[in-house]
């Protein structure tokens, strides 16, 4: 997108992005593909709301509706929210800790391509006989009964993209542990880095249960195993446990980085260090820890018995305490500060009451005996959209505006940004606030249509109108992105003027090696400390020297492509064995070829040494700081 890139021609740029191991470019890859899936999931959401605008509507058919609701949830969680968070983690975390890249640049690329091919595979189901239709939770009895290949797409697609997520999580853990600049102790790390660290730890422990669950289902559906088949001695409740042991930490994997983004934004635009930094860090860790203790609150009505329900109810309520601590610390950070209402700050300010509303309904849901009424009703739909949109999506939109200059070197238009903000905020509350009442008035969730004369008509219509406001907001944002990149007005190191952390000490976008000399960190908010002492830049921690850089590689792409191909073979071999074999006889060879491509590229990677290259001191001296720009 930079002018330099345009000169190089489209194919060269494409090849560069296919092979890149640079965290900043991988961030852009995550942003673009996550943004694409966000639009896809958004269109699915609009179709859902149009269908539910009036009673007894036949805008979409019953089967299609279930596919839409399944793909909306799955896409938004796995293919939109997580990659968009990874976009900001990749773009910002190495800069915030003063590193030249992540610990494993090759793995970083592999993680992205696995996610990408998994997501594409999942969405190809729309064109290849029908999407999954058992909800994003894919409860076992229903998913095993589901005809066609929809659920197979779900299982294989998530398995592939889940591996990518796990790899990315491990990479960030290692990066944050090992790659911090001199003086960047744990308790000096910005909150976004801290929350990335905790979220990555959650990924490490939460994704394996999902992988196990998906493998069991894969074997049930594709190879005739009976893990979840009750008539053969299987048990469907096991799937519920496996899914939610993953699924509950998953929501913290999403929300914690959003908390981190907001912490940095609030502190930046209040011109004040984060109030109660140590408490904030502790609360983040505690939320992550407790997140693993509460999964059964999704199963209060499954029939686990009062003892289990009571224990999980109290454990769930306990999470409200560290979350409350965070809310008050944000408020007190603003208190006594000097607040500037930029677009990112508007999102942060709107996030606080929105998230409090989502949080309190969370506590209500934790109350097991009352949850028997809320469970699987629109009350739950309202609750999780309040935390996921009010928390995660507002965080992503805030992050988009806040970090855009650092990622692209241009500033999104503030006026358009504020228009987007107001449209989105009004639309969000309009859509979801009323759904609390719909649920309490007896409307179950995941229903294709509702019949008239049940008192549900008016509120559903209001909800649909709200959804159109959100859609409009997204269109304005897209327009903003386009005109900003066309105008291409370049900005300096610290375009917001209030930057406190290391990423604002280097050019926007940073040179491909990030820091010419690693900075010396002298406390929390290192750039702010230097600014207060009248300096504009960080003090270097090392003399100018050669920088070791990794080579670009096409292998991650090929490795992921192999799994993508193999997945088709694995899926259609069921038909090959079931029918007379004429149509799908290619499936087993395709499975084998795909696996060979992956294993072969792993072998190449293992056997062929790749030592990277060095940027020499002399080149760095020629390179002026103010030039910036990617390669």
């Amino acid at each position, binding site marked *: 997108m930079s002018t330099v890139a345009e000169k190089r021609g489209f194919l060269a740029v494409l090849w560069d992005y296919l092979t890149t191991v640079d965290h900043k470019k991988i961030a852009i890859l995550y942003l673009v593909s996550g943004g694409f899936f966000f639009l896809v999931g958004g269109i699915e959401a609009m179709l859902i709301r149009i269908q539910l605008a009036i009673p007894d509507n036949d805008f979409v058919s019953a089967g299609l509706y279930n596919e839409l609701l399944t793909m909306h949830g799955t896409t938004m969680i796995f293919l939109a929210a997580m990659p968009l968070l990874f976009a900001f983690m990749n773009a910002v975390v190495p800069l915030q800790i003063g590193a030249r890249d992540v610990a494993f640049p090759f793995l970083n690329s592999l993680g992205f391509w696995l996610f990408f091919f998994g997501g594409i595979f999942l969405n190809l189901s729309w064109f290849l006989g029908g999407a999954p239709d058992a909800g994003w939770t894919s409860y076992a009895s229903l998913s095993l009964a589901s005809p066609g290949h929809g659920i197979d797409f779900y299982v294989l697609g998530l398995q592939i993209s889940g591996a990518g997520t796990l790899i990315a999580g491990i990479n960030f853990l290692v990066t944050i542990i090992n790659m911090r600049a001199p003086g960047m102790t744990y308790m000096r790390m910005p909150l976004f880095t801290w929350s990335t660290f905790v979220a990555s730890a959650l990924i490490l422990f939460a994704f394996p249960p999902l992988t196990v669950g998906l493998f069991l289902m894969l074997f049930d559906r594709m190879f005739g195993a009976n893990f979840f088949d009750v008539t053969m001695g299987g048990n469907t*409740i096991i799937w519920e446990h496996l899914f939610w042991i993953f699924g509950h930490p998953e929501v913290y994997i999403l929300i914690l980085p959003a908390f981190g983004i907001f912490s940095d934004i609030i502190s930046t635009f209040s*011109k004040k260090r984060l*109030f109660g930094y140590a408490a904030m860090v502790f609360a983040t860790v505690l939320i992550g820890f407790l997140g693993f203790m509460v999964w059964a609150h999704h199963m209060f009505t499954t029939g686990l018995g009062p003892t289990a329900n009571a224990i999980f109810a109290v454990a769930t309520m306990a999470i409200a305490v560290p979350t409350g601590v965070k809310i008050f610390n944000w408020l007190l950070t603003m208190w006594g500060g*000097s607040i500037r209402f930029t677009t990112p700050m508007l999102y942060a300010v709107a996030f606080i009451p929105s998230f409090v509303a989502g949080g309190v309904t969370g506590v209500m849901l934790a109350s097991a005996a009352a949850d028997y009424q809320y469970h699987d009703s629109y009350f739950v739909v309202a609750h999780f959209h309040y935390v996921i949109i009010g928390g995660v999506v507002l965080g992503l939109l805030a992050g988009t505006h806040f970090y855009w200059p650092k990622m692209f070197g241009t500033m999104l238009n503030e006026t358009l940004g504020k228009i987007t903000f107001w449209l989105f905020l009004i639309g969000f509350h309009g859509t979801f606030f009323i759904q609390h009442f719909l649920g309490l008035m007896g409307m179950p969730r*995941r229903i294709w249509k509702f019949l008239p004369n049940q008192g549900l008509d008016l509120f559903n219509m209001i909800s649909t109108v709200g959804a159109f406001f959100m859609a409009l907001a997204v269109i304005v944002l897209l327009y903003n992105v386009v005109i900003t990149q066309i105008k291409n007005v370049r900005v300096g190191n610290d375009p917001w003027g209030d930057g406190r952390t290391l990423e604002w000490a280097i050019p926007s976008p940073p040179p491909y090696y990030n820091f010419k000399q690693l900075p010396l960190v002298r406390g929390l908010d290192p750039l702010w400390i230097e600014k207060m002492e009248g300096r504009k830049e960080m003090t270097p921690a090392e003399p100018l020297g050669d920088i070791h850089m990794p080579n670009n590689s096409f292998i991650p792409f090929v490795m992921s492509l192999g799994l993508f191909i193999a997945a088709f073979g694995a899926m259609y071999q069921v038909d090959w064995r079931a029918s007379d074999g004429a149509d799908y006889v290619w499936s087993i060879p395709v499975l084998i070829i795909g696996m060979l491509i992956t294993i072969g590229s792993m072998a190449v990677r293992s056997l062929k040494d790749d030592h990277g290259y060095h940027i020499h001191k002399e080149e760095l001296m020629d390179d002026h700081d103010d030039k910036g720009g990617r390669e």
Partner: protein
Amino acid sequence: MKEGFNKAMKNGLKKWRFLPLFAAMAFILSGCGEPFLSTLQPAGEVAQKQFNLMMLSVAIMVLVIIVVAIVYVIAITKFRRSKLGDDFIPKQVEGSHRLEVIWTVIPIILLLILAVPTVALTFELGDQSGMEAEDEEGNREALVIDVRANLYWWEFAYPDQGVVTAQDLVVPTDQNVYFNVIASDVKHSFWIPAVGGKIDTNVDNMNTFYLNFDGEKAEEANNLFYGKCAELCGPSHALMDFKVQTMSQEDFDGWIAAMQESAESEQDFENDTVADGFAVFEEQGCIGCHAVDPTQQIGSSAGPNLTNFGERSYTAGILDNEDSDEVHAENIQNWIRNADVLKPGNTMGGYNEDDLSDEDLDALTEYLMSLKVYSE
């Protein structure tokens, strides 16, 4: 509504500090929804207790929101840079131990206030011992109903009375009714919002819970509550409704007796059309899936039992029969012709003119409407 309000008040008194909030909440929310469907107009002991717990949590949460809102509004109005000027450098406060202790301890106390009644009610609702209570002769005292969820329809059996019905659950008011619930095919969830929370009908195991249908409240809802499937179960999940007819214990005994009697009595057709209809019912093979014998064992037929089909409030759980016999007949014909459209994915499918002539359909409808055991 008034009694619920009073109960809410009484419950609120124990937590005197929430009283005004609590009362206001209960009053506002109880206006929401329809009395036959809304959890906010509880029509039974279970729903009432759950409603009270809801109101307690709402009150606590509103309290929290008010505190946050006050700090929030002051912070974002008082500390704007446009007022303070660009040169103002705020004091870089590290934190405050005292404040942090306050906003850790107070939420813990608030949560305890909610946690204690939550745990108590969870155990109370989880206690199914009343199901086993026996009188001197060794007969079970409480009414037990077996519920079987099938793809888009519900089967209800009264094991102690030896009676089965479907789609319209018939229950006596003002006593605990115990339910054993299970699913035949995929997981569903059994929910009568106005009367109490839901319980999943698993495929793996039988779940047990109880509800209590309040006589007075039931009258407000015309003795007919809506029941829902609350767990995604396939294309027609949204249409897997059932209805609950409530009646006094006396009437209920009469209903049971009538059902039992209908099993023993000989087929007796009112007129020739009805007799023709029965012939169609047999020829078309309807009887293969739909028993008209209330003693049929639960779970043994592929479709709903039709013993008292002519008395059901809704056809197939979704087409309202209340208006008149004409509407009722139309509903039945509409269902037989278009079952696959009205409930996509159901196993009956539609019967077009080739499958079933208009004449036969009329006769069949007449026969189906004559399937009455209790009302005349």
